[in-house]
């Protein structure tokens, strides 16, 4: 039975919305990620701002139809500024009972749910652990629903393709995509182009997919659905003028590293070991060999970082990447890099921890690890991009700091940023600042020995002399070195001096990074919401909404975590209270207390899901209204 229980008033209310959150959900074999990302492409091309968030199942091949095999893709798009993938979906497309079971709880009350009734048979209901059919038992009463036998309609649409039933049913995602494109007034052309390209060699599959897409679209246009439902229309957003594309954090990060290599003129050597959610960077860079990029899939995490250190030692730009468990394994080698003072970029894509934790879920719980996770007094600069597109610029920043200060740099991203996508104003690489690099080539004067630890008086960076350079042969190692000669030294005063200079070098980077500003709101007030990394989006929106309610709140977002911007303490002084939302148990809170001697208010979440705007907004209201009233 296909019916729509949409009521006229609800529709007009929905179509007035400035932004809309749509969630596609189905079995991991249903092609949900493809459907979602193609919908995103079509949406971007229509000029809306957007943000996406893929929610993969933890298992690679979970049994079909089970709740733990459910894959989802969420997209938030609108005519205003969009910085998160949205809190609660307004529309849920559920391609099987398990997808409905997992995702219904987060659907906004009164939201629209589109289900494939063809899959709501006893076997699937049982697999999803439904005791009765939710389509019949009133479970969906709080929502608007569109029930369509998508399975059957897809089979009908592609019956001339010659595909067997199993392959034919695989086109279900394209059928649903066609319907969604109609619903939101999106063009089908980009999807056709994509299908043409992807299935250029297998015409039968291409044609079947096109047929399914058209059938879904036509269904929306011609069936009774159109009688009481004319679709949502989200207009173009107010993005700054320029050329855009959608970009995920992983893409932006990979491209930023290549840009850093280009701007510094040093070849990029990327040593990495497969780990979720960092692997896409390895995949992307291995497709960029035309830029001279060397990618090395090492035997383990330790070899990955060591190969990058070896490459830097030999004069290249060494980069390694991993997630928390792998970063733990690299700790000793990062200590070596900072002791021998070689440039190294370490990308850490955080995920749920501790131990193996939640590999596919996002978290920010490796801040301590980045700042402190080594033996000895071992300071390392730490930076964090705040959005997918920002990964590009922070990757360049990591390269800049590593080369200028001859130091390892840790770039903290996370699973959310890695997979999330947003429209990105394409930069012109030719206008970016070059990164100057000095590799010494002149031998010391006759009779004088070369000291590789001779320092630049301003940056305190040591001299970089690369193997292959005549007259500058020297030895380095993890044993303490003499400040004056670079030779091994066990002298205690020398160790004090070297420890101090390593500390001072990293601390001094504070003079070379931008002063902290507020993202939104005044430079002082009753409350500042301070974040770092991927919480940027929800904090941004929560602060805007709170300010619209008349609350005196500002947003401060840190991109440099070690050293902190010089003026941060002064900036904080202007606020009565500071709220710190973090996807951990309060790590930045501790750091701020340590560095600035201030007490901040933690707002913590470690559920594997990003913050919702409403969670932060509630906390702001709580601080400024409820507590203030006490």
């Amino acid at each position: 039975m296909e019916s729509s229980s949409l009521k006229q008033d609800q529709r007009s209310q929905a179509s007035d919305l400035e932004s809309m959150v749509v969630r596609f959900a189905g079995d991991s074999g249903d092609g949900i990620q493809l459907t979602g990302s193609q919908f995103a492409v079509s949406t971007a091309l229509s000029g809306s701002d957007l943000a996406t968030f893929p929610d993969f199942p933890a298992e690679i091949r979970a049994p079909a139809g089970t709740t733990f095999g459910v894959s989802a893709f969420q997209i938030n798009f609108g005519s205003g500024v969009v910085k998160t993938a949205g809190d609660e979906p307004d529309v849920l497309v559920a391609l099987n009972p398990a997808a409905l079971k997992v995702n219904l709880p987060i659907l906004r009350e009164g939201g629209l749910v589109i289900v494939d009734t063809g899959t709501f048979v006893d076997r699937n209901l049982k697999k999803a652990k439904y005791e009765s059919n939710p389509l019949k038992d009133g479970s969906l009463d709080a929502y608007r629903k569109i029930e369509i036998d998508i399975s059957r309609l897809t089979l009908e649409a592609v019956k001339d393709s010659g595909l067997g039933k199993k392959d034919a049913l695989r086109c279900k995602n394209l059928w649903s995509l066609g319907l969604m494109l109609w619903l939101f007034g999106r063009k089908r052309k980009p999807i056709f182009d994509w299908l043409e390209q992807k299935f250029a060699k297998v015409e039968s599959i291409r044609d079947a997919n096109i047929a399914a897409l058209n059938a879904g679209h036509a269904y929306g246009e011609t069936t009774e659905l159109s009688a009481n439902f004319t679709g949502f229309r989200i207009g173009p957003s107010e993005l700054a003028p320029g050329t855009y594309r959608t970009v995920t954090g992983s893409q932006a990060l990979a491209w930023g590293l290549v840009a850093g290599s280009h701007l510094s003129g040093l070849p990029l050597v990327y040593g990495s070991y497969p780990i979720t959610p960092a692997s896409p960077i390895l995949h992307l860079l291995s497709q960029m060999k035309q830029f001279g990029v060397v990618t090395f899939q090492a035997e383990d995490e330790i070899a990955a970082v060591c190969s990058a250190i070896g490459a830097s030692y030999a004069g290249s730009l060494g980069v390694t990447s991993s997630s928390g468990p792998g970063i733990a394994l690299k700790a000793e080698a990062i200590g070596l890099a900072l002791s021998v003072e070689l440039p190294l970029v370490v990308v850490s894509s955080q995920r749920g921890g501790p131990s193996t934790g939640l590999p596919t879920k996002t978290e920010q719980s490796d801040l301590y690890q980045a700042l402190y996770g080594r033996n000895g007094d071992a300071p390392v600069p730490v930076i964090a991009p705040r959005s997918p597109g920002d990964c590009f610029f922070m990757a360049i920043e990591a390269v800049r700091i590593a080369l200028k200060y001859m130091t390892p740099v840790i770039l903290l991203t996370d699973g959310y940023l890695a997979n999330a996508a947003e429209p990105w104003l394409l930069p012109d690489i030719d206008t970016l600042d070059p990164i100057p690099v000095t590799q010494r080539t002149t031998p010391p004067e006759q009779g004088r020995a070369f000291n590789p630890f001779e320092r630049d008086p301003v940056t305190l960076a040591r001299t970089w002399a690369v193997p292959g350079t005549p007259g500058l042969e020297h030895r380095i190692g993890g044993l303490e070195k003499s400040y004056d000669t670079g030779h091994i030294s066990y002298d205690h005063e020398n160790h004090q001096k070297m420890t101090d200079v390593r500390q001072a070098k990293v601390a001094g980077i504070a003079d070379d990074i931008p002063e902290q500003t507020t993202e939104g709101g005044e430079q002082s007030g009753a409350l500042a919401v301070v974040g770092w990394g991927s919480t940027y989006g929800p904090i941004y929106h929560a602060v805007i909404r709170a300010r619209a309610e008349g609350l005196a709140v500002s947003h401060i977002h840190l991109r440099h975590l070690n050293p902190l911007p010089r003026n941060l303490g002064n900036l904080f002084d202007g606020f009565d209270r500071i709220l710190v939302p973090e996807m951990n148990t309060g790590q930045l809170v501790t750091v701020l207390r340590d560095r600035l001697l201030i007490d901040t208010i933690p707002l913590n979440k470690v559920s594997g899901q990003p913050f919702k705007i409403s969670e932060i907004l509630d906390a702001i209201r709580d601080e400024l209204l409820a507590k203030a009233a006490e």
Partner: protein
Amino acid sequence: MNNVQTVSKPTPKDFATDQEVRWCPGCGDYAILKCMQRILPEIDARPENTVFVSGIGCASRFPYYMETYGFHTIHGRAPAIATGVKLANPELDVWVVTGDGDGLSIGGNHLLHALRRNVDLNILLFNNEIYGLTKGQYSPTSRIGTKTASTPYGSVDRPIDACQFALGCGSTFIARTVDTDQKHMPTVFKRAHAHKGASFVEIFQNCIVYNDAVFADFTDKAVAAEAQLHAIHGEPLLYGKEKNKGLRIKPGTVQLEAVIIGKDGVTLDDIIVHDETDKTLASLLVNLERPDFPMVLGVIYANPESTFEAEIHKQIESVKAESGKADLNAFIRQGRIWEVT
């Protein structure tokens, strides 16, 4: 290249640093260092193009004493760091200095993969069957029953043979030599250096403090001739003072047999001629056990294959040639882009 440097040919002294050598007096490491400083000028090595990478342990102090580029890294990781060096600059002449603990225990994985990938490295494993730097614990090459600080009742775990390991890893060059043999060691080092790809050299090195004379049964001058077989490509596998002993295939088996020419009807024709490209023979030779068999030294296996870094760079060059001038601005504008006005 710097002209001043290329005018005069370096001498062994030019390869020695001014750093005080800190091994125990009488340690086998001294002889290895001397040998290295001696052969580098002979093979026309340039100090600026030569890099010594080491891990942690007594042997790993080696780079500090070589007037070349040197990197004393962390425990076990030298092959991984050296791999990065070669990926960045395949032109460099890279030597890895490691020990039985560094290379076969904590760093076993990296050694395995450097050998498997055939990175063009000269890997010298100083085997003294003990942890020296940490004051005498048994190592993965220590024989069962070895009494040390950590095994006062004798070790119980089975040792690994370095060359068997290397062969199993797919090494394309395997050789053995002895620290005190200043005639044999240089020839092995030169062969290792000439080999393109990962060259694995096991050096039996005496730790005079914690494991003295552990190899004496075949390294002592008095017994060496009878107990060592110097394998030479194309020559019969003979040993003994009179060169009247040799190895043959035991009739009816796939095993080696130590025989005496002239005894039991054995003639020179029965003795196997060493073929260093024969992996099966190499595997038989590294499996021979003392004291029933001589210790086989020299180049046991050498079969060059394309190196890892050469293949990596070949791939990069072919992609470059195919795609024309790489333009990052154009690259990030591939796919769907749109204008906002």
